[in-house]
C-alpha cells in the first residue's frame, strides 16, 4: 500500500525501493477489525531489518492472531530522514503507511548496542517523547526486545516495557492483557504497565528505583511495589517442535543482506565459550527434530521460491542430527536447484562429507573462528579447538575447491600477551603453508587468507563479565603489532575500529546514568551508528563529558566480584555462581566440556524446555 506522504519524495532519495512496502506475503488487515495495532520497528535500514530472523518469526506469530495486526517499520537512510524533517513527514509503517501514533504498541528490536541512537531518532521522527516518563496516556506503549535487553539499563528509561527473552508467547500475552483492560475499562497507562509486570519475561523499568554508592557503583534495585518482581526471569519457548515458525516470508523487492530461507535448527549452544554472551543467554539448548525442520524447509521453499536455505544456529555442526537433516534436505534441494549453506561451522567438526553437501551448487569462501592465536589462550576462553583441528579443516576446504579462507580472531582477551597476538600471524602463515603443501594440480586457484580481528568486549552474563576492557591505546598497539607480524602478501588483515568497541563496551555494560548521553546524541541528529560512515566517536566523548559520564568506569575499570551489576535485575537461567566458577577456571587455563559431554550445572535447566542435554 502506498503512503502518500512518502511517495512525494521517493523520486529524490537513494534506493526508494526501501520505502514502498507492498511486498508479496506482507500482511494487510482491516484496521477496524483488530483490537491491537502493533508496529515492529527495526532500528536500521530495510535491507538489514528484512534479513532478521527474530523479526520474521514475531511478525508471523503476531499476525496469526486475528485480533492483532503487526506491521513493519525501518529506519530511513539519512537522505530520507532529511526529507521527512523538511516536509514534516512522520515515520510510517510499511504496510498501511499510517504514522506510528495510530498504533497501540510500538516495539523495537535491539540487536546491537550501536542501534540505540537510531531508536531515539525513530522515536523523534514518530513524534513521541524520548523519555517514558514524559509520555501521555494516548501515546503507544513503547517496547524493547532482542539480545541487548540482557542489559537494557542504558536505554531502560526510554522504554515503557521490555521483553526479556524469547518473544513468541509473551508479546501475545501483552497484547491480550492490553485488549482485556481496554475492553473492561480498567486501562490506564500505569495500571496496564503494573499488570504487565506480573507477566513472566516482562520488565517495566519505571517500576524500579536504582540507588548508587558513593564510589559510583550500584547500591540496589528496589521495586516500587511489593507485587513487582525483584528479578525478571527470561522467557523461553519450551518445545521447538510445536513452536510457531513462519510458513511464508515477506518477499523483498530489493536485495537484502540475507535474501534466502533461514531455517533455525536449534536454540542455545552446548559449548560455553567464555567471551560469548549468546552462548550463555540462549541456554538451555532446545533442538528441532529433523522431521519438523524438513517440513518447515519445504513449506518455505514452496511459498518463497528462494534458491538457498541457510541452516542456522549458534554452532550448526553441534546439531545432534546434522547428517540426517542434510541427507533429508538434499533429497529434494539438489533437484530443485536449491543450495544449502551452513554459516557457523566449528573447525573441530568440519568434514569432507559436510563439505560435499554444502558446496554442491555454489562456490565462495569459507570462514573459521579459532578466536585466539595460541592454545593457551584458546583454553582460557574455552574455545576447545586446536591448531590441528584448524589445519585439518582448511585442508578439507582446499580439497573441496575453496580457496578463500577467512579466519576470525579477537584481541584484548583476558590474560592476553604479545605472544598470543603473534600467534595469530603464525597460525595464518601455517594456513598458507598448508595450501602450498598440497600437490599443485589438487589446489584450487587463487589462494586468499583473510585474518579478521575484532576487539574483545566483556559482555554481561559471561564468565568475563567482570573483566576490564583493554584501553583504546593498548588495543591499537596490539593491532599494530599484529599488522607488522603479518608479512605474507597472501594474508589480508582486517581489523575493527577499537573506538567502536570501546563505545560498544560502555553501552553493553552501562547503567541508567548513560541515558542522558544517548539522548544528547539523538538531539544532535545522530543515528545509524552501526554504519562506519555515521559513527562519530568525538560526539560520543562529548556526550559523556556533557552528561557527567566517565566511560572508563564501565570499561578499563573492570567490575568487582561482589559489586551489584546493572544486569543483576535479570535472571537468564545461568547462575552467577556458574559464571564465577568458569571465570576461575579461565585463569587456571582449564577448559569445560560441552553440554553433550558433561553437564556443568550452569543453572539454565531450571527454565525447563524440551531438550536433549540438561540433567
Amino acid at each position, binding site marked *: 500500500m*502506498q503512503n502518500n506522504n512518502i*511517495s*512525494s*519524495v*521517493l*523520486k*529524490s532519495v537513494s534506493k*526508494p*525501493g526501501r*520505502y*514502498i*512496502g*507492498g*511486498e*508479496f506475503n506482507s500482511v494487510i488487515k482491516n484496521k477496524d477489525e483488530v483490537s491491537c495495532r502493533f508496529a515492529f520497528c527495526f532500528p536500521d535500514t530495510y535491507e538489514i531489518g528484512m534479513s532478521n530472523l527474530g523479526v520474521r518469526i514475531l511478525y508471523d506469530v503476531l499476525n496469526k492472531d486475528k485480533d492483532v495486526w503487526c506491521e513493519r517499520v525501518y529506519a530511513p537512510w539519512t537522505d530520507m530522514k532529511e526529507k521527512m524533517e523538511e*516536509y514534516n513527514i512522520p515515520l510510517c509503517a510499511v504496510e498501511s503507511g499510517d504514522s506510528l501514533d495510530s498504533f497501540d504498541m510500538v516495539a523495537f528490536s535491539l540487536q546491537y548496542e550501536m542501534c540505540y541512537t537510531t531508536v531515539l531518532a525513530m522515536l523523534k521522527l514518530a513524534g513521541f517523547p524520548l523519555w517514558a516518563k514524559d509520555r501521555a496516556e494516548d501515546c503507544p506503549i513503547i517496547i524493547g526486545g532482542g539480545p541487548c535487553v540482557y542489559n537494557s539499563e542504558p536505554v531502560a528509561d526510554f522504554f515503557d516495557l521490555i521483553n526479556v527473552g524469547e518473544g513468541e508467547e509473551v508479546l501475545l500475552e501483552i497484547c491480550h492483557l492490553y485488549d482485556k483492560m481496554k475492553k473492561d475499562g480498567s486501562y490506564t497507562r500505569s495500571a496496564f504497565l503494573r499488570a504487565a509486570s506480573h507477566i513472566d519475561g516482562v520488565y517495566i523499568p519505571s517500576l524500579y528505583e536504582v540507588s548508587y554508592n558513593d564510589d559510583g557503583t550500584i547500591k540496589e534495585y528496589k521495586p516500587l511495589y511489593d507485587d513487582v518482581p525483584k528479578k525478571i526471569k527470561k522467557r523461553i519457548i519450551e518445545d521447538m517442535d510445536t513452536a510457531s515458525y513462519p510458513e511464508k516470508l515477506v*518477499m523483498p*523487492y*530489493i*536485495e537484502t543482506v540475507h*535474501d534466502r530461507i533461514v531455517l533455525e535448527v536449534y536454540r542455545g549452544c552446548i559449548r560455553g565459550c567464555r567471551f560469548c554472551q549468546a552462548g550463555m543467554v540462549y541456554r538451555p539448548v532446545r533442538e528441532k527434530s529433523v522431521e519438523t525442520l524438513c517440513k518447515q524447509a519445504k513449506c518455505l521453499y*514452496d*511459498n*518463497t*521460491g*528462494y*534458491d538457498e536455505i541457510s541452516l542456522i544456529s549458534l554452532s550448526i555442526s553441534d546439531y545432534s542430527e546434522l547428517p540426517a537433516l542434510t541427507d533429508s534436505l538434499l533429497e529434494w534441494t539438489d533437484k530443485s*536447484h536449491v543450495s544449502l549453506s551452513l554459516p557457523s561451522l566449528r573447525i573441530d567438526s568440519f568434514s569432507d562429507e559436510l563439505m560435499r553437501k554444502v558446496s554442491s*551448487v*555454489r*562456490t565462495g569462501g569459507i570462514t573459521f573462528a579459532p578466536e585466539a592465536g595460541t592454545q593457551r589462550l584458546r583454553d582460557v576462553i574455552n574455545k576447545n579447538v586446536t591448531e590441528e583441528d584448524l589445519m585439518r579443516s582448511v585442508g578439507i576446504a582446499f580439497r573441496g575447491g575453496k580457496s578463500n579462507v577467512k579466519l576470525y580472531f579477537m584481541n584484548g582477551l583476558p590474560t592476553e600477551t604479545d605472544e598470543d597476538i603473534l600467534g595469530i600471524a603464525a597460525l595464518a602463515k601455517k594456513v598458507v603453508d598448508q595450501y602450498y603443501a598440497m600437490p599443485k594440480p589438487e589446489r584450487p586457484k587463487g589462494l586468499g587468507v583473510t585474518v579478521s580481528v575484532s576487539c574483545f568486549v566483556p559482555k554481561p552474563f559471561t564468565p568475563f563479565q567482570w573483566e576490564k576492557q583493554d584501553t583504546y591505546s593498548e588495543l591499537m598497539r596490539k593491532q599494530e603489532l599484529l599488522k607488522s607480524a603479518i608479512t605474507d602478501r597472501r594474508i589480508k588483515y582486517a581489523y575493527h575500529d577499537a573506538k567502536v568497541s570501546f563505545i560498544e563496551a560502555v553501552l553493553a555494560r552501562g547503567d541508567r546514568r548513560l541515558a542522558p548521553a544517548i539522548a544528547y546524541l539523538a538531539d544532535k541528529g545522530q543515528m545509524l551508528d552501526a554504519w562506519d560512515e555515521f559513527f562519530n566517536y568525538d560526539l560520543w566523548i562529548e556526550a559523556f563529558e556533557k552528561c557527567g559520564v566517565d566511560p572508563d568506569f564501565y570499561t578499563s575499570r573492570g567490575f568487582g566480584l561482589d559489586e551489584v551489576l546493572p544486569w543483576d535485575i535479570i535472571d537468564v537461567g545461568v547462575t552467577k555462581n556458574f559464571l564465577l566458577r568458569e571465570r576461575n577456571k579461565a585463569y587456571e587455563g582449564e577448559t569445560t566440556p560441552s553440554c553433550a559431554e558433561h553437564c556443568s550445572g550452569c543453572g539454565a535447566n531450571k527454565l525447563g524446555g524440551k531438550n536433549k542435554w540438561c540433567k
Partner: protein
Amino acid sequence: MVQVNETKRFLRFKFIKRGSLQYISHLDLVRTMHKVIVRSKLPLWYTEGFNPKPKMIFAAPLSIGTESECEFMDIRMSEYIEPEEAMARINANMTSEMQIIEAYYPESKFTDLKWMSYRITLTPVEIDDELVLRSNQLLLADTVEVVKKNSDKTIDIRPLIKSANATRVGNSIVVDAILSADPSSFLNPEYIVKYLKEKGGLLSDPDLTSEHYEILRLKAYFADMTEFR
C-alpha cells in the same frame, strides 16, 4: 521479417508494473521474477552447468521512476504449458501492482520491437495555456538537444522521437510520445522531461511536493507501427 519460433520453447508474458513498483530497478525486477516463477511451479528449463538458472529474457528495461502497462518477458519452458494456466499461476504469486495481462507463445523476437509509447504527466506549480503552447513548440522543433546522462555530450534526440505532443489536462501538461525502443538507440523518456525542464522552464524544483511528474509506458510497436506482440 517476423521469425517463427517453431519449437515454442519460450513463453511470452506481457505484464504491468504500476504504482510503487516504479521504484524497483530492473536488476531487482529480474531477481523478483526469478522467485515468482519458481514458486509458481512452472515447468522451467534450467541452464546447464555448475550454477543452473532458469532462462528469462526481458524487453526494453524500464528505468526507476517509470510505470508501465507494457512490459515483456520471455521464459523458456521445459515442456508445453497452456499460456492461460501459466499466467494464472504467476498472477497468484504477485501483488496487484505487478500482474500478467497476456501470455502466449510468440512469433516475434524482442529485437523486432522498435517503438514504445509513453504518457508523461508534468504538474508544475502554476499552469497556463502559454506554457502548453511553448512545450508543444519545443517538442516540434527541428532539433531536440539534450545533454547525455553521466557525460557532458550534447545529442540531438529528434530522430528517436516518432511523435510527441503536449495537451493540457486540468493542472497538468500531458505529453504523449512515441520514442525509439530499438536496443541500439533506446530513448529514455526521462530525456523528454529533462528537455522540457531545461528549455521550457518547467518544474524548476521537482523536489517540492507540489511539483511533480509521472511517466507511464503504454504500448510497444514493430517498425511498421503495428502493435508488438
